[in-house]
């Protein structure tokens, strides 16, 4: 059973083609790792899923509806954590939460309070004074407090220190395993996918070259390239950067 599907998504920035017939399938209740090199189109894909960008063609299946672009009501069912946080820095954490809560009917203040407590975030601190890692954790707390059907994260561990990274991954594992939430996260850290992912999609030059269980990636790469591949990193490199292997 899937939460989200895309059908034949095309997207281009002017003449620069980014996505070329993307068919993404995110199973319900699982963690989907979205792998790709820098510039492969991961962020573009996630922004299309959020309705921030509109695909040139193709459709999305979400919440029982097939749409070309996510409507506001569908977006209310998706929690989104972007790669870099552009919060209003003059706001305090609690004011930011209050602001965000205005757009989500399912917002749980109780959950938010619990999350920022678990993540050691001061509700009275100004957002502008938070570190990059704390802002990322705050973004996750905000996204999870909306009670989303699907949690979408764009490289959530990029640029954060190892401790914050560990907290973020632990939180993701927790919400996925304990609460059964569906998580779609992009990354270029293969070990993260290996650690918390159930499924993986490998994006290369605008197309998915692999989309299935994480543990099938090595065999697939070995079969496709005919090379002796031992681990996920080797499989990833073989699929998206064959010149390096």
């Amino acid at each position, binding site marked *: 059973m899937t939460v989200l599907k895309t059908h034949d998504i095309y997207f281009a920035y002017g003449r620069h083609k980014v996505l070329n017939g993307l068919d993404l399938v995110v199973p319900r209740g699982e963690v989907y790792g979205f792998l790709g090199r820098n510039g492969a189109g991961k962020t573009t894909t996630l922004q299309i899923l959020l309705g921030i*960008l509109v695909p040139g063609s193709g459709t999305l299946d979400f919440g029982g509806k097939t749409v070309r672009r996510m409507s*506001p009501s569908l977006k209310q069912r998706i929690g989104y954590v*972007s790669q870099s946080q552009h919060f209003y820095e*003059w706001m305090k954490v609690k004011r930011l939460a209050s602001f965000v809560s*205005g*757009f989500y009917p399912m917002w749980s203040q109780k959950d938010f309070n619990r999350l920022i407590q678990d993540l050691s975030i001061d509700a009275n601190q100004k957002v502008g004074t938070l570190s990059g890692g704390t802002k990322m954790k705050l973004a996750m707390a905000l996204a999870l407090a909306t009670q989303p059907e699907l949690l979408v994260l764009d490289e959530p561990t990029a640029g954060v220190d190892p401790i914050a990274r560990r907290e973020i991954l632990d939180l993701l594992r927790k919400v996925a395993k304990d609460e059964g939430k569906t998580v779609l996260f992009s990354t270029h850290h293969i070990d993260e996918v290996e650690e918390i992912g159930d499924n993986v999609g490998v994006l290369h030059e605008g197309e998915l070259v692999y989309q299935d269980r994480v543990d099938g990636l090595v065999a697939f790469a070995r079969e496709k390239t005919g090379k002796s591949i031992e681990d996920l990193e080797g499989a990833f490199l073989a699929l998206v950067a064959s010149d390096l292997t």
Partner: protein
Amino acid sequence: MTLLRSSAALVLKEIQHHIGTFIGLGILTLPSVFLALVLTLGTGGVSFVASATGLIYYWIPVVVFGVIRRLVVLEHEEGTHKFLASLPPPAWLRASVKWVVGQVAVAAIALPMFFIVVGLASLREIVSIFWVFQLFTQVSLVIMGWTAVTFAVAHLGRFRHWVWLGLMASLVLFDEIPHWQQYTWFAALAEPTDAYRHHVPWAGLATSAVWIVAGTTVGLWLASFRGGQLPVVWYRTSSALDRVLGASVIILWMLVAEVYPEMGAGSLYGWETLPEVAEGVHVASDVLHPWGIAVGTAQDRLYGFTKDEVRSRIVLIPEAADVRPLASPVRIDLWDRDQVIFRVKGPVDSAGVARIIRGELEQRSAGALVHATDRGWLRDGIGLYVSEPLGDRKWSERRAAYAISYGLKRDDLLDWEGILDTWGEDVASGIGAVGIREWAQLAGEDKAGAVVQDVLMPVLPEDSTAAWRMAEMPSQPAGVSADDLADAWWMALQQAHDRRSDEVFGVPRLQGTVQLVPAEASNVDVGWRLNGSPPDGAELVVWPIAPLRLQPVYGAPVWILPVNDNRGVGPTWAPADSQVRATVRVWSELLQGHVVMGWQRLEEP
């Protein structure tokens, strides 16, 4: 419900985010009101409302740019638009909220200034509530127009500087095209202080409304097209070129301000912008302004009648009011200038005295002050452009405005500017005199007397005699028959006297001659012979003429001799070889309680 909740959250955020800036802009703009007051009193401006609203229009761009920059530009420059875009509210809702907040913020900053202006203006400018409402409506729409256009341009990202540059440049480039201003963006945004739009209070609203709709539509479309992707793509960090462009826009703005010289300064137009509903108001002037001087002169004459010492330099005089119970002086001490407002109260018991004031003021200020509903247009139409410096007056617009004001067609009024171009200023006034007959007929036969009485004074005041004399010169290639002009005048006056003998004093038409009489070896005298006794106040007026140009050497007659008998000789002390032109003129200030002025051209031997 979700929409309302989302909108409320966005509105609350915008207010919290920018309230400090909005208050700062409000505090910054407040002194402009008092600057307007200083400009009004210090530059000879006569209407605080006009100059202050003009200044407000200056400030509106500052306020609007500040507000829209905060709401739109800052969002993109700081990248917070990405955060907003990731939230459920669609782009059109986010943009709409910004539009509404922008409009409200600009109005909240600018409109209090408007009401302060109106409140202060009431001290010396009697305006009706309805007129205030009209002005308020116009100002409001102008503010909305500015905000809407700026809102749209702001979404053009790095191209916005170019667009502003183009808009500003277009004003400078196309300013010479007739009526172009009335329909352009700037006309809607900065021009409502001009005479045209205030004479026709509702005429500018449609133009303003069009620009509001256009700016709003384009702005919302740009903001929401494909989820608001255009501004995202177009915005970038300001470059050196952007800053140069921004500076160019400011410079062009200054140039545009030169194009519209009436903006922001006290203006003679001020009182003309007052509506006819304020017809009780006649004049307000500054001591150094010609009008103020005229007031002083009038009061000198008043003193001769009333023996009341009245010294005011800003005067409000209700029409036909008795001047003796001058009361309620309101003194404004500003720069040690004697600025006094008088409000005239009481019944009319001395029409002659009132007419002296009117005559003096109208003669000096060419009659533009009185907006009497039935005949004021004649003074406006003729007098203003006879005696006032023409300068940068927009006659074509004013002509249209006057015509509309008095229920006429534009072409019903003499194209004074065209006549001036063709004949020159001096001859034009003579032609205008002929035109009076037609205009009198236009106003109705029964009004002829009043028309003539009103028109005579402003058209042929003392300083216009030169023009009249020029028209009678045989060598003047104007093609104007001086005899025809004189006949027209006398016919009009006679008709007026026939119909309104109680108001228009019949001046006997003098016949006679003037001639140059050799006196001593180096001088020439002027002799006259009339076919009847001259009335009181008849004068012999002698002008030296420049030989080559055949124009008067001076702006006023050099010799004015009393004419007490039907014949005589007056010394001029002019050189024997000089050219002079002599006229016997009858100018009696007060005859049977009415001011009547006539004149007679005498034939030369």
